[in-house]
């Protein structure tokens, strides 16, 4: 009968991972819609293509090598994930040895499924920042390296528990990846943006910053809702265990705080934008909600709901200032990805010691530094090599005509815009 209980626990925790993973996969759709809504219509097909393709590439590369590099389990090509005939016996035996004490038990396949969607998230962050001017195939080449090597190595030093290049262990707490996933994605994006330059017409010669409005705000809003929903899987699944009272309660707190932080972020951004610009800026509020989510991700289980709301609110305010500041620095990020995931990701890491006594500010700073340094540096090298091999920026003419025409030969909205037929 003990075995039966154990079997149920195994099933429950596996299912919990799978449901969480499906929600994180759903975030891929969120990024795609958000980005498709915030670019101009002439670059929409291309950004959609990038998003679907990067997710597919992430899944392939993480299976081929990423998971093995990061966790040292599963094997290259995932050849060790199947379990085989002795699966049940093995699981019961190791559990019996542990005295059925309720350790985390679940299918390795569900773990892979949950982890692979995180890689895709990191990569999705990049596509938004380099939108409207980066070559499609150059971007996909970068995706191969990022999801196959850069992210898995960084992940191995943190969640994978390995030493940084065999030198030192990071003493650093990042619950669901404010730094490991979000800031990492933003670091890769920043490297790309610095090499790419701004979109034509974004900055006037006189130093003015020109708006380039997104073509479809309902789409962008939908994307934000999708991300908000998917984030319950992202953070909720990161408790890594459901099947006992303490874990289940922790998962519940994570859901509650994740939602609270997003709400706080939306409110914060709405009000600060109202004060700064005199109007309710929908796109800033969307960024604010996402900022709240990113900020809480480093530690969603220990704050009180009030703290979570306030952390989110500050993040929502911070992101507005970050976006306008980056613009003043002429770092052109059409969707605000570097601010939302990078600046606020860092902020989230720094918040951890406030509610989690196991973390120190110094540990967090070192961890953040290592992640940023490695991902930014490795990405810069990778982008540079790609630039030398095939170029990373579309021609000025193609940029004027739109990446859709040049890269995909296909319009996103052929009947809604005036393009000749």
């Amino acid at each position, binding site marked *: 009968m003990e075995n039966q209980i154990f079997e149920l626990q195994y099933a429950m925790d596996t299912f919990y991972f799978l449901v969480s993973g499906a929600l994180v996969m759903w975030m891929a759709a969120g990024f795609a819609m958000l980005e498709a809504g915030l670019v101009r219509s002439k670059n929409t097909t291309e950004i959609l293509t990038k998003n679907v393709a990067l997710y597919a590439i992430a899944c392939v590369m993480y299976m081929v090598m990423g998971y093995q590099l990061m966790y040292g389990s599963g094997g290259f090509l995932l050849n060790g994930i199947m379990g085989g005939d002795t699966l049940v016996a093995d699981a019961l035996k190791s559990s019996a040895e542990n005295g059925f004490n309720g350790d985390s038990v679940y299918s390795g396949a569900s773990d892979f499924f949950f982890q692979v969607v995180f890689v895709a998230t990191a990569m999705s962050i990049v596509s938004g920042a380099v939108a409207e001017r980066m070559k499609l195939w150059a971007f996909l080449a970068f995706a191969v390296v990022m999801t196959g090597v850069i992210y898995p190595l960084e992940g191995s030093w943190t969640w994978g528990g390995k030493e940084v290049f065999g030198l030192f262990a990071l003493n650093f707490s990042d619950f669901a990846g404010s730094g490991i996933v979000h800031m990492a994605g933003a670091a890769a994006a920043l490297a790309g943006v610095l090499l790419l330059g701004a979109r034509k017409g974004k900055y006037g010669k006189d130093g003015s910053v*020109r*708006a380039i409005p997104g073509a479809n705000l309902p789409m962008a809003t939908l994307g934000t809702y999708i991300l908000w929903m998917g984030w319950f899987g992202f953070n909720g699944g990161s408790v890594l265990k459901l099947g006992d009272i303490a874990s289940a309660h922790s998962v519940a707190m994570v859901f509650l705080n994740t939602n609270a932080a997003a709400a706080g972020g939306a409110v914060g951004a709405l009000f600060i934008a109202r004060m700064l610009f*005199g109007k309710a800026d929908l796109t*800033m509020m969307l960024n604010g909600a996402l900022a709240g989510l990113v900020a809480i991700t480093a530690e969603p289980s220990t704050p009180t709901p009030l703290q979570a709301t306030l952390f989110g609110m500050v993040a929502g305010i911070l992101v*507005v200032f970050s*976006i306008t500041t980056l613009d003043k620095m002429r770092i052109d990020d059409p969707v605000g990805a570097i601010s939302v995931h990078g600046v606020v990701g860092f902020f989230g890491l720094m918040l951890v010691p406030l509610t989690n006594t196991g973390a120190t500010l110094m540990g967090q700073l070192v961890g953040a530094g290592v992640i940023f340094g490695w991902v930014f540096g490795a990405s810069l090298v990778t982008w540079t090599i790609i630039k030398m091999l095939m170029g990373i920026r579309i021609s000025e003419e193609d940029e004027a005509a739109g990446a859709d025409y040049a890269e995909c030969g296909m319009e996103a909205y052929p009947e809604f815009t005036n393009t000749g037929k």
Partner: protein
Amino acid sequence: MKMVTAIIKPFKLDDVREALSEIGVNGVTVTEVKGFGRQKGHTELYRGAEYTIDFLPKVKLEIAIAADLLDRAIEVIRGAANSDKIGDGKIFVTDLEEVIRIRTGESGREAI
């Protein structure tokens, strides 16, 4: 015959059309256009960046008309389209040499 081209504010379209009907003008061709003139656009903020609207939405009416109706037509267009604000628009008059109705081949005044 004359071709009367009126550039007006979009929300006046129905009023103008009805006013024209009342004097017996039943054919109009309408185009959505963007106008640039004394009425200045405005500057908006979007994500903290400036966003200038130079061109304002206007509607262009083209009305082929018999020469003797011209003055009356101009009068009713002005009457209906006027809101006493800058940007109410213009009326242009050009000479129309010929009109043909595609279906019947009629031409001249018959065809209008």
